[in-house]
């Protein structure tokens, strides 16, 4: 198990696409450091031979009928779009 001080907040914030001020970085690193130190005690648990649970009850292969169903109307979707034109969500230029 890694140590709480391993948290490279610059790197992780970048992965999460979150920009932090210098003050936030220091504050969150400290607060998360405390949490991580608490979490470290999980290293003590004997998990040899234990299967991981992705959730409480075994649910496997829940299928839906392959039938087309009406979706949301375009105008309803675009109502929440930050910008739209001609039935499309308008976004900043990506490719030059």
């Amino acid at each position, binding site marked *: 198990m890694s140590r709480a001080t391993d948290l490279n907040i610059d790197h992780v914030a970048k992965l999460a696409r979150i*920009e932090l001020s210098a003050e936030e970085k220091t504050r969150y690193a400290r*607060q*998360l450091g405390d949490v991580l130190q608490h979490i470290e005690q*999980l290293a003590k648990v004997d998990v040899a031979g234990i299967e991981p*649970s992705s959730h*409480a009850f075994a*649910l496997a292969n829940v299928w839906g009928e392959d039938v087309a169903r009406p979706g949301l109307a375009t105008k309803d979707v675009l109502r929440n779009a930050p910008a739209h034109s001609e039935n499309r*969500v308008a*976004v*900043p230029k990506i490719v030059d």
Partner: protein
Amino acid sequence: MSSELFFSTISELRARLDSRDLSAVELMGVMIARTKAVEPRVGAFNSFDERDALAQAAASDARRATGATLGALEGIPVGLKDVIAVTGQPLTASSKMLANFISPYDATVTTRLKGAGAVLWGRLNCDEFAMGSSTENSAFHPTGNPWDVTRVPGGSSGGSSAALAAGEAIATLGSDTGGSIRQPAALCGVVGLKPTYGLVSRYGLIAYASSLDQIGPFTRTVEDAAIVLGVIAGHDELDSTSWKAAIPDYRAELQRKQGPWTLGIPKEYFAEGLDPEIGAAVAAAIAFYESQGCRIKEISLPHTQYCLDTYYIIATAEASSNLARYDGVRYGHRSQQAKDVVDLYFKSRSEGFGAEVKRRIILGTYVLSSGYYDAFYLRAQKVRTLIRQDFTNAFQEVDALITPTSPIPAFKMGAKSDPLAMYLCDIYTIGVNLAGLPAISVPCGFTQGNLPMGLQLIGPPLQEANLLAIAQAYERAYPWSQRHPLL
């Protein structure tokens, strides 16, 4: 006469509505007046639409007038936590990220409530994206506990519990990922139920941690909880984690199930950190059950001390994935300051999310990141198996577990500024979510300072009917919810 109405139960009001003693429009009028009177002090709502609510009430009266078969919640004002989608109404998750978002669709629970004739009343405040235990993380405003508005109502569903306790709704819905229905229920002196994972559809619930989230009711009585559960529970094709179990008539089952039962006391839930008044109240409740012929067994849930850590790895990991959708592109806050598309993601997310949300996303990203996944996330998933096994073992010997809900009564706003201190509020509720079990908090008394205390009952999966019966047995002898806050 008004105070009888806004503190009434679903059962009482259905009787009066059915006998035409009262109309849904009159009832909704009373709720609106009450809400306006107390909201300046309580602040349970993010928004409400009186015209829409009165129109729904009028439609309910019209249905009643035709003599058609009426739904279980016909004419009853029900408030929804602002993470549950209702077409045409705001869906903000109490976040700047969604401050202007209007839902284009109904959650499945919304469809079911409408089908049962409920009058949907308002958007209830919560901790931002359901992350918190005090509702102080709401990006908009905190909510006051109706028993002392300088104190928190609990969280994350603090608006839902406060609105009910203050008489601003007859029932409310919240969501529970680590205790976010049960803990606010305990702090506000109302009943709060978290169903078995998968019993109630998550379609239309803003996702926080998908393997833990469940929607559930806040009500004044256990019978009311049975009524609401009967409306919202059931398999949903739109939620692939939804159970295909047959849904019992919970209310009818309450009359049938009598006890006595065998109740387990997990010793790890009565250790240090538990407020002595709450400990005494729970002990008194245990003594009551014993006096009714129940067998009381001390049991152990040996991995209890690891529940909090396991939760804060799994929940934050899932949250980091679920909240990746908020990128400023198709909906939600889009920054006006971005210089290119990647900058758009960084700035929109940083401007849109509050501190606790950012912390949890960062923690979740870290525990999933390359080099750390095995040590944190995979390990936590294994400990989760062990935690679940602890409960399964316990239920071989007992019908239900009895514990305090919250280790402390409602604390002053601002008292828990340290995140870790706040996380410790959830120690008795969190294991339940990891194991996917049903659990209910019922009021079990008041502190010397007149603050509510809550008792938690935990049951085996899909045994809500039994759990409700056990809870009601206590409630019949100790109807604490008949006491109301002075507002």
